[in-house]
């Protein structure tokens, strides 16, 4: 995995804004004969645009993960249910909607009116392909059947990055901890269910790494589940136990995969909510470091987590590992000033060492903010990284 040897490298958390016509093809469930050529050209375009805006470690914008409308917070995990056997829809679960996942949330209780009113201030909160999954339940043995889909993603990205002069490329895949959110009727307990999910999704991980790409595992659930399941009861011990098991599960999925081909992304959920229920990074940092990845991508640019750069003063980043802190965020329409981006990078560099920091985004920008803002933020990110490099390397 590339690191910031003589300057601060840049990357992002994965999702980028899809072209309108690509979303329309997904929306209309277009046949492969129409979808695939456009998907391939869109991936080529988005790879080039990342390079043009100064991004060093690029991806396919997650374009192979179906997004059907411009506001969509869920494509990063909804994509996988076309790639997994063993799930079917249960109407009684569907009727519960999102509450089936967030039943134990203190934040959703305290801000019930806000969430009920979709923010109430004309700011879209939830438009999401997650809602297509309400009701989806595990009713049989879980099996990975997405080989063709991930092969397609790989085959479209590989030529797209040729000749761009980028440092490296990554592909995202969802974590077992996220997958185990959906209800289970088949396995005898949550542990068996999670383990089966880990074995299944591990096949996708392996194909990404075998193809020569960096694997990014998206695991917001590792931190989200505190608020969703445990916060109302204040059950910190229960959460801790749950999270420890999830780390074991993801490591099981990663068995045989070299650590230096893996980066691990956590975020506290990208919806535009208050996030007062987010578990502090310091509660989970030691567990995070147990994940067999070389790099950790973490939100650090939004108002709930910006202060947490200080955590790394007390938690030692093991030798050889990297941090990819978010230095621009989807949480505000305002485009970060490059000087602020530089300040944020320098703070991390001073704590963990400049060669151990890659500048990233809090979470995916696609689906969360307007496309023009997403690209302006990526530009601000690379401008800020240049300023920081100048300061850090003179």
């Amino acid at each position: 995995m590339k690191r910031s040897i003589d300057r601060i490298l840049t990357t992002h958390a994965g999702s980028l804004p899809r072209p309108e016509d690509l979303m329309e093809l997904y929306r209309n469930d277009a046949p492969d004969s129409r979808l695939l050529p456009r998907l391939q050209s869109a991936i080529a375009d988005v790879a080039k645009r990342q390079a043009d805006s100064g991004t060093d470690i690029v991806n396919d914008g997650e374009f192979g993960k179906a997004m059907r409308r411009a506001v969509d917070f869920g494509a990063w995990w909804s994509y996988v249910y076309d790639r997994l056997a063993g799930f079917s829809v249960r109407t009684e679960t569907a009727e519960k909607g999102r509450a089936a996942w967030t039943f134990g949330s203190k934040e959703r209780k305290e801000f019930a009116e806000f969430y009920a009113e979709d923010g109430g201030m004309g700011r879209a909160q939830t438009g999401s392909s997650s809602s297509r999954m309400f009701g989806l339940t595990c009713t049989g043995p879980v099996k990975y059947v997405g080989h063709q889909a991930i092969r397609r993603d790989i085959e479209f990205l590989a030529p797209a990055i040729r000749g761009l002069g980028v440092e490296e490329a990554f592909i995202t895949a969802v974590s077992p901890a996220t997958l185990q959110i959906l209800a289970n009727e088949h396995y005898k307990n949550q542990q068996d269910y999670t383990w089966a999910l880990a074995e299944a999704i591990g096949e996708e991980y392996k194909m990404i790494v075998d193809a020569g790409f960096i694997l990014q595992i998206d695991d917001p659930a590792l931190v989200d589940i505190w608020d969703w399941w445990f916060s109302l009861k204040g059950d910190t011990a229960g959460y801790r136990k749950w999270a420890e098991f999830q780390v074991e599960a993801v490591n099981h999925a990663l068995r045989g995969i070299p650590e230096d081909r893996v980066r691990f992304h956590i975020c506290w959920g990208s919806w535009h909510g208050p996030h007062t229920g987010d578990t502090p990074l310091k509660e989970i940092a030691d567990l995070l470091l147990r994940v067999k990845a070389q790099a950790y991508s973490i939100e650090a640019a939004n108002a709930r987590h910006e202060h947490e750069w200080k955590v790394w003063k007390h938690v030692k980043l093991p030798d050889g590992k990297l941090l990819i802190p978010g230095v621009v965020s989807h949480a505000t329409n305002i485009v970060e000033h490059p000087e602020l981006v530089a300040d944020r990078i320098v703070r991390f560099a001073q704590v963990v060492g400049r060669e151990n920091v890659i500048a990233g985004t809090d979470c995916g920008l696609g689906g969360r903010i307007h496309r023009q803002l997403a690209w302006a933020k990526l530009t601000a990110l690379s401008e800020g990284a240049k300023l920081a490099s100048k300061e850090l390397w003179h």
Partner: protein
Amino acid sequence: MRMSTDRILTSHSGSLPRPDELIEANRAREAGATADEQRFQEQLRSAVLEVVRRQQAVGIDIPGDGEFGKSMGHRVNYRAWWSYCFNRLSGLDLGGPGLYDAPPRRTRPGEIVLTSPADRRDRTTFAGVYNDPEGSVYTGPRAAHWPVCVGPVSYKGQAAIQADIAHFKAGLEACGVEEGFMTSVAPGSAARLANFYYKTDEEFLFAYADALREEYKAIVDAGLILQLDDPAMADNWDMVNPEPSVKDYQKFSMVRVEALNHAIKGLPSDRIRFHLCWGSWHGPHTTDIPLRDIVDVMLAVNARAYSFEAGNVRHEHEWTVWEDVALPDGKFILPGVVSHATNVVEHPELVAQRIVRFANIVGRERVVASTDCGLGGRVHALIAWAKLDALNQGAALASRKLWGKCDNTARPLPRLRGRSA
């Protein structure tokens, strides 16, 4: 004016979320459908009392009236801080073309003119964002008409400002709070209207200064802190198309400072604070002028304290400006350490980090922690109050760090909202 003598005090920029019933009543009143003015005033008075109480409960040291006397007829509203004065001034025709229907105007070197809101540089650069049907920059229903000046401007809002003052003072008294602030718009921001009466824009501006002086004086005479709201000082920059030279812009802005200083001449500067922001709409703000370029213009205002945005991602880095700019003796600042620009509620630790950065430069007693801009109309009511809560928790953490006998990390932290620290 209270300063942070033994701990970091807190205040905010003025606007707070109006209760739904007041919004309903405002809407009816704006449409001329309020039969019983007396009853409306009673409703307003009890809403002001409640909002003073709530500020006190959350720990705000220097509260305002939430700008409740400045009518908002919709939950989403970005203009009440300015539009309130339309009915308090004579010489205006309220039936002019809508704000976004004005034609663009072009600036030439040495000759700055303000263009139309629709032709703002940020708005044209990010046309897709501003016209996004998903509405992330939604600023509420647009007014069909906007005022134009057609005659001599004079103040006729005596009854309105006296009612605002009476309601607020009753609220302060009931809560036993001694110091409270009331906002009033500055001439440079208020007079951004088409002028068909005065020979020059400067004459128009000074007429506004003379008229608004009455309101300023009423607030100060009542024993309240006067907060002068003047976003135009910063956001005019984006309204000059094409981008002018900084020197031309400073010159243009200094004329507006002269008008403002003229308006407050003879009023005790110790009772006046000044609020600057770059416009509170949820846009990208890439064309905001750096604070560094206008800080001297701001400090030329004869006020005791200066409130400005420092809690959003376009201006957070600007605390370093104060390393190079000498804050005159006796003056203090109210940096924004929580912002309307995101729904995410600032972590108290972040609030504390921001406060401490300022305190380390200008001195702890010269920082009152505040908000970027008004929270009312810009974020959901629950978010607004959660942010004020975070502001106070953060100020408590910062105070402990700045005055405490030992390092903050060695002491137990107060319990935070949600999970304990």
